[in-house]
């Protein structure tokens, strides 16, 4: 959707104004909103305009085909949050929401995070196998580099470490401990 004011930039600020009981909807780009004084960025501690409003705007753009998101049928089985509620306030209801709304969330995540998979810290309690896999792939990269540099002694050491770690992996994929 393009900004109503300039018709050039995409509208990222969406709001409804009620004057004398008359409701009007506005769709503006950030710059025009600022020019019109609708986007108060001088804040103090006023939460008026937050990241969550912005996210809702991004969601609108990420969802050109509405047939997938037919309102209330699409709910998280754990916490009961509907996708409509999420797109309104930009907050998910629980960890399971990520699985429940995966297909709709993917385009949004690409937008705000880039296409990526978590490669950082892993909790010890749940991530036993995943931790090992991460460690193995890290050592494998080091092994390749060692071979390139023709440091064969170091490479042999790394190979043995990788073997030892592989033995600790559970037999079946995703089998946990």
């Amino acid at each position, binding site marked *: 959707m393009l900004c109503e004011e300039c018709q050039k930039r995409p509208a990222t600020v969406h709001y409804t104004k009620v004057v004398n009981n008359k409701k009007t909807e506005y769709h503006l780009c950030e710059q025009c909103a600022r020019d019109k004084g609708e986007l108060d*960025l*001088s*804040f*103090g*501690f*006023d*939460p008026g*305009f*937050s*990241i*969550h409003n912005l*996210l809702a705007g991004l969601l609108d753009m990420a969802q050109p085909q509405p047939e997938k998101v037919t309102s209330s049928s699409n709910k998280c089985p*754990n*916490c009961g*949050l509907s996708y409509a509620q999420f797109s309104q*306030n*930009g*907050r*998910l*209801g*629980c*960890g*399971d929401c*990520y*699985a429940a709304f995966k297909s709709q*969330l993917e385009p*949004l*995540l690409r937008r*705000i*995070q*880039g296409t*990526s*998979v*978590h*490669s*950082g*810290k*892993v*909790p*010890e*309690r*749940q*991530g036993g196998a*995943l931790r090992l896999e991460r460690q193995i792939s890290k050592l494998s990269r080091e092994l390749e580099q060692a071979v390139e540099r023709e440091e064969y002694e170091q490479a042999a050491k790394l190979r043995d470490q990788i073997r030892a770690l592989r033995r600790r992996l559970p037999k079946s994929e995703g089998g946990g401990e």
Partner: protein
Amino acid sequence: MPKESLFRSLNSRWIVGEGPDTDVVVTSRIRLARNLRSYPFPHLLSEKVAREMLKQIENLLTLGSSKGDWGRLDFFRMADISSLDRLVLVEKHLISPDLARSQHAGAAVLISDDEAISIMLNEEDHLRIQCLFPGFQLEECWKLTSSVDDLLESNLEYAFDRDYGYLTACPTNLGTGLRASVMVHLPGLVMTQQIGGVLTAISQVGLVVRGLYGEGSEATGNLYQISNQITLGPSEEEILQNLGAVIRQLVEKERAARQALLKSNPLALEDRICRSYGILTNARLLSSQEAMRLLSDVRLGHALNIVPKVTNRVQNELLVLIQPGMMQRVANEKMTEQTRDFRRAALVRQKLSG
């Protein structure tokens, strides 16, 4: 019962402590967002469940803190402390404005003795683990935050997904849940009018610039908070290396700008700094905006050895002391804006005269 000194004293580690590069970098902060598996996120959490969760985490941490080397953690529910005290905690950077505003039954915070660690409960996420250090020391800050995280994790089941990482209420924190921010003082870049270009460049390498009190606050006193934008994909170490590398360059650029100013017109710079010092040590009415602006000059003056007497500690104390919440708390009375300006001027005079 909240201990009184927390709301009146200025003993936070970031205020009194020493750190590297304090001529430009005021503080380094790490924040981790964590949630408990299968519980709804705070905004959908019922009061009853929220209370149970608080008990569990409070017990865990008061017991567990003996294992870490960070000493005792004090626990406060937001509902049990006045709005003025909450404001003071915001001004000391121990809690976020969002938590201070929160009406949530489970909204609470745990704060370590040296005020370097604060763990917010039921802000946007169940847990927000934060460490705040003086100067430029992201690595040390990360080590401490991660060790608190490890202790919590050894007893709690976190919401975690192998692809998405740590699951958070807002997708902008997904993955590592890590927000690292560094507060820098950039008067040189502002005066030499390079700041616009520098800030634009920073935002193009995946970093965000904010004001003194984080999300949604403006940059006063030439103080900027620079933090990572992306939380999913790169590892914690990569995020910190990226931010650290940019900050190092920023520090060099700021120092170069200061030297350039000193070289091109030393007298004008010295005059400006000494005038600001003069006003601060003599004014009878000081608004917080004016005070922040003048204190920025004095901070620069200290870094350039023009007003050497004003130590880092005094400058950091003043940064908090002149804020409305802290002033009213110290004076123990509600003040109108005019009396506040009068009190502020008196406080600043007193502090600067030692």
